């Protein structure tokens, strides 16, 4: 009995390893046709679902700015701001039928760029605010204020991301487009909503690492006449630096793979955003909108994208975990 239980528990622990490697292997197997066909060039090819003529004069790629309309999907319509001429114009150009002498090309550059830029935007927006909140909670506010606010922040971190997306679509998107112009679904809105979504997560982690600073260190600094800012800058930051940076990278990892908060507000069109206020698409959103009705090469290309996202976030998170957040046990 003892031996059985021990084996069972060891087996369960191994499941973690098995599942993670299975994810990697399965994604790779399904992505293989696309990987073989497009290779590494997939990463820099901005064309998605574009028909290319195989004729001799194929030097100039035929319809060269064709955008696949992904919102005609009955199950998961891509969100479109109602009066956005830009988006509608883009959506109007539906894909041409592929005839025998054409070939459909899939490239991942647009969603990859969309993912990276929306994450960077989110970080630019979230890091200062999350730092402000955690400094406020850890040092400025008294216990009477910091406790309820801290709990509120932690509760906000638990709210499902779809809520952030919905709010972004109906309230924040129009608000942003009112200020910065452009459409109410755009890279900018996606980045900002993403930023707002990771603020609670980031600030509660950052506050926790700031709180690990021993009181004695802070008190000695105060005793020497240091101001609060100097204590924060010269005592708390150096002490909690690893934890703070680690928490930020973890939040970045979360922003990278976030689907629902972005799906509502990024626009879901395969165009390269010329301006920050243009709609575009990110890897999770491509997967969310196109997966259910894809097959063959397009499905394989989607798995290729999923693999890229998985590897990317795996690297980011492991980096945070192994480099910054080592267990201090």
């Amino acid at each position: 009995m003892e031996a059985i239980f021990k084996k069972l528990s060891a087996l369960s622990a191994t499941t973690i390893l098995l599942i993670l490697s299975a994810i990697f292997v399965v994604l790779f197997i399904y992505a293989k046709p696309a990987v073989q066909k497009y290779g590494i060039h997939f990463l820099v090819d901005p064309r998605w679902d574009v028909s290319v003529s195989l004729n001799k004069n194929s030097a100039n790629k035929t319809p060269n700015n064709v955008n696949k309309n992904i919102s005609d999907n009955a199950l998961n319509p891509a969100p479109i701001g109602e009066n956005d001429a830009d988006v509608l114009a883009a959506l109007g150009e539906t894909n041409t039928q592929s005839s025998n002498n054409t070939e459909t090309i899939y490239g991942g550059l647009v969603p990859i760029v969309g993912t990276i830029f929306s994450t960077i935007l989110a970080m630019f927006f979230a890091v200062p605010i999350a730092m402000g909140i955690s400094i406020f909670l850890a040092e400025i506010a008294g216990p009477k204020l910091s406790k309820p606010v801290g709990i509120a922040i932690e509760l906000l971190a638990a709210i499902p991301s779809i809520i952030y997306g919905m709010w972004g679509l109906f309230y924040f998107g129009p608000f942003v487009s009112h200020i910065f112009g452009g459409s109410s679904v755009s890279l900018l809105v996606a980045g900002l909503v993403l930023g707002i979504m990771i603020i609670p997560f980031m600030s509660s982690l950052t506050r926790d690492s700031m709180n690990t600073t021993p009181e004695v260190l802070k008190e000695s600094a105060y005793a020497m006449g240091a101001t609060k800012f100097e204590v924060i800058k010269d005592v708390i930051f150096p002490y909690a630096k690893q934890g703070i940076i680690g928490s930020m990278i973890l939040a970045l990892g979360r922003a990278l793979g976030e689907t629902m908060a972005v799906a509502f507000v990024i626009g879901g069109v395969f165009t390269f955003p010329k301006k920050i206020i243009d709609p575009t698409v990110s890897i999770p959103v491509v997967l969310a909108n196109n997966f259910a009705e894809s097959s063959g090469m397009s499905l394989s290309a989607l798995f290729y994208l999923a693999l890229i996202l998985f590897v990317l976030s795996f690297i980011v998170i492991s980096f945070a975990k192994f480099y910054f957040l080592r267990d201090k046990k």
Partner: protein
Amino acid sequence: MRLVINKIVLFLSTLAAVLGLIFLFWILITLTIKGVAALNIHLFTNDLVNNGLRNLFIGQFILALIAVILGVPIGMAAGIYLQEYSFNNKFASFIRNLSDVMMSAPSIVIGTFVYAVVVNPVGHMNGWAGAIALAILMLPIVVRTTDDMLGLVPKELREAGVAIGAPKYKVIFNIIIKAAKVGIMTGLLLAFARIIGETAPLLFTSGNSQYFTLNLNQEFPSLTVAIYTLATMPDKHLVEIAWAGAFILTVFVLIINLLGRYITKEKK
């Protein structure tokens, strides 16, 4: 000068905190206003096909429940292994880190994985696939919680158990798990709250259904997937239903979280 800089920095960080909180409360307030306005009794008695949410609540709950049934035993056993049997060897710390990494893996990628191994062989979306995706998402959280909570149990309790001649699995089940019960329960509640609000891994695994069904072999109703679909519809009334669903989901998630907190507090 130092004092001025101090004042400025403190003011700025307070400002940032206030700004962040304004955004977050803006979300909660709009959600409440829109959600409460759209609430009515028909939402709880009708299915989606009749503009209600009943089948969606039940469907989402069943998916999460099955995920718990699948994920918790494996997760807890893994946590027990890490804390009780591994003696903190290299393999254990490797698994521990791996599990933490898995906790932050993009949920949509888990969805694609389950699509490949469950939906694709079966040929159509089904409830089991959704539940499995949620279970995979939940697994690392359960491992982490069990691992942490068992770690808090004093060594003396274990020694006392072993000293009276109990086999190790009995010590674990009758002494250690009992001592860590509250913490583990809280962790499980929070893990449940996390997966019940998930949308991305369900989109193409369990899909959605307009009708009431308990048959996990076909597409299964899900509240979150329905919110995504309804919110992007041009029909104003459907959008209102989506708000009501979003509101109820959020309230439910927050209540579970508060409950978790309350249980931990009672213990202390």
